[in-house]
């Protein structure tokens, strides 16, 4: 049994210990969450350093797959699993007060534990359970402010989320009826004969929409602007940055392993195009900062799906690039929006009051639009090159859409940047020191990636090559039937 399990178990345990511990020793309870996350991050980082990029599995409880549940640990899973405690620490609810503090910290720990589970699990039903845990924790966090509008937004989010979970369950029922297993590796072996018909496509469509609720996929993303505008900024940052990416990771695994068929990729491409268009057009019209960020995040997630529909190693590389870039940029912007939550007009002059935060905003805006040396440019280039190589009508349409929304993005982001530097009275308060530090840290990360773009790109290419190869996954989970693995 490897220590990777601790990354899931410890936050889960801490989430439920927090409430009683707060009664006995409040000062200890204050430290419990961050300490747990530090241990989880250390365990994952240590695994990465010692195991390198060789994938391995952990059979939970010692029960071998396919009957037992396995955790599948490869570089792709570790990358996302490691992002979970790191972003959890960056957006930890330090400032929540009183009774709310314990509740919000416990929910955050629950969210992070389940998120790490989503990244690592190799069993379809186990993934569903972790997904539901993420969902329930995020419903609670969405209502964390306790205002009436936050509760209405949370209940609307909950109904869409529950509908999505229902679709996933139907998908699971179809898959199980057709194959008799829920282990992803065994599904990968059985899928070619059983799931490549219309039933398989239906199962994929249902699960795509179901997991798409958290991944802000069109058309199940109506909750996004409401929730991100009413929830605390740190919650929006976690949901938009981290949780959406883990839902994307699940869809990636499903498509690579189980539903490797052109019509499935095409469905994703169409939904991605619609999401990008709808999100960016709505963001262009948005009149307050949090909702502008929320809607632009729908657009960016749409681009992740477009990128991944290219297929193969290049598709996965492009999707990873867009997803990781968004993971760095959007949470930082949400951190800035904590104090700048008013209408866009009210932000006039904010840059003169806090030059550093305005400079950070401009940096992130430039990268989002895709101005050359910044990573945003390289990921958009990757997507466009991949689409051009495919060269079918739909792919060319996707290219046109991406270029068109880039113009929109430039328009609404630079419009705001200009407004920040305008001379005006009554500029809003500058962002709090903690928010500014978080955004600064992520900004430094963005610049570091810009400077080391070649090794980072090469590392991502290796991760993508490994992740896009279903035979590696199957060979790692079932080492015995060597016939499935090629000689190399």
């Amino acid at each position: 049994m490897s220590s990777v399990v601790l990354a899931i178990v410890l936050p889960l345990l801490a989430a439920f210990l927090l409430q009683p511990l707060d009664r006995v020793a409040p000062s200890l309870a204050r430290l419990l969450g961050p300490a747990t996350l530090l241990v989880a991050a250390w365990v994952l980082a240590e695994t990465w350093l010692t195991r390198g990029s060789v994938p391995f599995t952990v059979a939970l409880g010692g029960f071998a797959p396919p009957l037992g549940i396995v955790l599948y640990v490869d570089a792709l899973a570790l990358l996302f699993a490691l992002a979970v405690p790191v972003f959890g620490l960056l957006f930890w609810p330090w400032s929540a007060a009183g009774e709310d503090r314990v509740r919000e910290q416990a929910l955050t720990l629950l969210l992070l534990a389940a998120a790490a589970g989503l990244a690592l699990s190799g069993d379809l039903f186990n993934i569903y359970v972790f997904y539901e845990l993420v969902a329930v924790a995020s419903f609670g966090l969405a209502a964390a402010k306790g205002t009436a509008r936050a509760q209405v937004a949370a209940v609307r989010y909950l109904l869409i989320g529950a509908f999505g979970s229902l679709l996933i369950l139907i998908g699971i029922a179809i898959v199980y009826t057709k194959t008799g297993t829920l282990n992803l590796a065994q599904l990968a072996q059985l899928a070619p004969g059983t799931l490549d018909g219309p039933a398989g496509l239906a199962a994929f469509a249902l699960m795509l929409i179901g997991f798409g609720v958290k991944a802000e996929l069109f058309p199940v993303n109506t909750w996004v602007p409401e929730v991100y505008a009413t929830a605390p900024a740190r919650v929006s940052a976690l949901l938009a940055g981290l949780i959406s990416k883990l839902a994307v990771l699940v869809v990636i695994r499903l498509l690579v392993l189980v539903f490797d068929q052109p019509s499935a990729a095409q469905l994703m491409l169409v939904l991605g195009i619609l999401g990008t268009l709808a999100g960016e057009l709505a963001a262009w019209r948005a009149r307050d900062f949090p909702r502008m960020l929320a809607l632009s995040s729908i657009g960016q997630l749409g681009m992740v799906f477009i990128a991944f529909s290219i297929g193969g190693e290049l598709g996965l590389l492009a999707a990873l690039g867009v997803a990781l870039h968004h993971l760095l940029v959007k949470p930082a912007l949400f951190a800035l929006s904590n104090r700048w939550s008013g209408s866009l007009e009210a932000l006039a002059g904010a840059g003169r009051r806090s030059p550093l935060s305005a400079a950070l905003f401009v940096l992130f805006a430039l990268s989002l639009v895709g101005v050359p040396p910044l990573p945003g440019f390289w990921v958009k280039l990757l997507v466009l090159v991949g689409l051009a190589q495919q060269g079918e009508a739909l792919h060319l349409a996707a290219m046109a859409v991406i270029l068109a929304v880039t113009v929109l993005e430039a328009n609404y982001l630079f419009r705001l940047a200009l407004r920040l530097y305008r001379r005006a009275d009554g500029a809003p308060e500058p962002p709090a020191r903690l928010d500014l530090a978080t955004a600064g840290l992520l900004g430094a990360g963005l610049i570091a990636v810009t400077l080391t773009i070649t090794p980072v790109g090469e590392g991502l290419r290796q991760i993508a090559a490994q992740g896009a190869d279903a035979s590696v996954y199957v060979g790692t989970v079932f080492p015995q039937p060597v016939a499935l693995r090629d000689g190399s």
Partner: protein
Amino acid sequence: MIPFTLETVLYAGAIGLTAIGAVGMVMSNHMFRMVLALVVAEAGVNLLLILSGYRGGAVAPILEAGAAPLPMVDPVPQALVLTAIVIGVGVQALAVGLLIRAYQAYGTLDVRELRRRMEDDLCAAAGVTSPTSLHAPGDGPLPVPEAQAQGVRG
């Protein structure tokens, strides 16, 4: 032609329940009815899952010492459904809890009305005019309510 057997009837029932629930969730105008529709749909999906492991005339999957193994139903979907039921109950309870708070705040559970009130509230807190406002475009901006003074994000 689909044969008229027990299994067809059961599948039709499960799919029918799911469809009734799903349509109910999309069509109803009342939040609480949406939650009820969710319950119906979940029951349908759970039946569907149970059916995926069903075998006609088989016994429950309990192996007793010394007994000859009889044909058994697949235990895996039953375990899954057990989990799904528990998750479903939790989510429904949370939904009803949030609905009570929403009703206390706005005095209605009508979907469109609730959405409009929330949208107005949100726009007022952000200091922008609401796109769903009942005021004609020429009426000028809505008066900014006191809510804005409550806090930075309202």
